[in-house]
């Protein structure tokens, strides 16, 4: 067991803003975002890498931030739910979840939004199967997935229309 706490300096760009901090190696990316940067939109729902509530984009790819050490994001770019909305308007994916009632309590929602962002950035017109596959790593405990599918489909349509 290490006798002295090791601190590792890292620089991470989160939602376009650079942060340089020293962290303990065991700090998870999700805790870095929530506790070190105060970005509490990214949630923790499980301890098993199962639920996807903690999903963020790391260098453009969705990851479960409870299963990445913050030191591994060094020199990287992170996008969280806080980075989705513009100054005065919601991101089309947020708007679509709102309009299609893609949530009840909202706890899982940031993770679903980030998975949807990854899906729609890769596939502008996903069919039902691709949508199911794209959000298979996210679990909602409140609602059926029907409105979430609807929301993703609506978001895809509105993003194609832009």
């Amino acid at each position: 067991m290490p006798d002295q706490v090791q601190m590792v300096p890292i620089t991470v760009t989160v939602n376009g803003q650079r942060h340089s901090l020293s962290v303990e190696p065991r700090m998870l990316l999700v805790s870095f975002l929530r506790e070190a940067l105060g970005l509490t939109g990214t949630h923790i729902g499980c301890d098993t890498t199962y639920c996807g509530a903690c999903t963020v984009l790391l260098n453009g790819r969705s990851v479960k931030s409870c299963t990445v050490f913050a030191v591994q994001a060094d020199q990287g770019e992170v996008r969280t739910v806080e980075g989705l909305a513009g100054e005065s308007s919601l991101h089309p994916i947020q708007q679509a979840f709102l309009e299609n009632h893609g949530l009840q309590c909202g706890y899982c929602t940031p993770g679903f939004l980030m998975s949807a962002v990854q899906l729609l950035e890769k596939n502008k017109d996903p069919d039902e199967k691709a949508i199911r596959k794209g959000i298979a790593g996210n679990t909602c405990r409140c609602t059926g997935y029907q409105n979430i599918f609807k929301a993703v489909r609506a978001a895809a349509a509105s993003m194609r229309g832009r």
Partner: protein
Amino acid sequence: MYPRAFHYHRATSLSEAVSMLTDLGEEARLLAGGQSLIPLMKLRLASPAHLVDLNFIPGLEYVREQGNELRVGALTRHAQIEESAEAARVPIVHDCASGIADIQVRNRGTLGGSLAEADPTGDWAPVLLVLGTEVVCQGPDGERTVKLEDFLVDAFVTTLAPNELVKEVRITQPPKKSGGAYIAAKRSAPVYASASVAVQLAMEDSSVCREAGIALGAVGLTAIRAREAEKVLNGKSVDSRAIEEAAEAAMRAADPQSDMRGSAEYKRVLVRALVKRALEAALRRSRGEPVEVSHLYA
């Protein structure tokens, strides 16, 4: 939950990683995608004192064709294999890569880490066994190349020495007129298979099989090669009777345990059903039919 405190070491080359492992001794572990190791550390089922991070080593993420081989760098993520045009030419490899866990896990988890972990329910081992695969390992004395069947020793045990690592995986491309398919039955996406089946058929013509490869996952301590089932097909016409017989033989080769994923009996029956499906898909693919196969969710 937080893992126990550890010292973090960032390797910038493979040889540096090997010398770090050598210097730090048995208290050190490699960190690749972290998709097996970090969950274990969070649950304190693993508490290594030192982690050697491979993620900052350049040039270890690739899928390339070389001769009749597909060479995959140890740090290549499942999602990169899923997206690779080279890998897509070996459909069974694509079947596997595209269905592991979920997209978030596939974006991080690596092929090298999966093989090194040697989880009996891992998806790669059965697939790579039916293709003929070698694992290139690097240690303090240089490289050695091991056949996958020799690399996998037991559940969670490989031939890797504590200061050795996986550098590359070399997959033999199947000959023309071949078809393969991989089907894993899972309760939901982010869980491991209850049982899985990999089939690869090299055909003489559209119905007679020259050589069959059949391997089973999650129903033994390592992936199991179903040799008797292969014999049923070798040199024979792959008709519905032969498929039935091969599926029965594969079921007898399975050695499952009852657990939260189902009873041993259920898993045997599942193997029989999966072998039939995978053989039918492999046969159609060998005839050039595009058949979509993916992991099944109960």
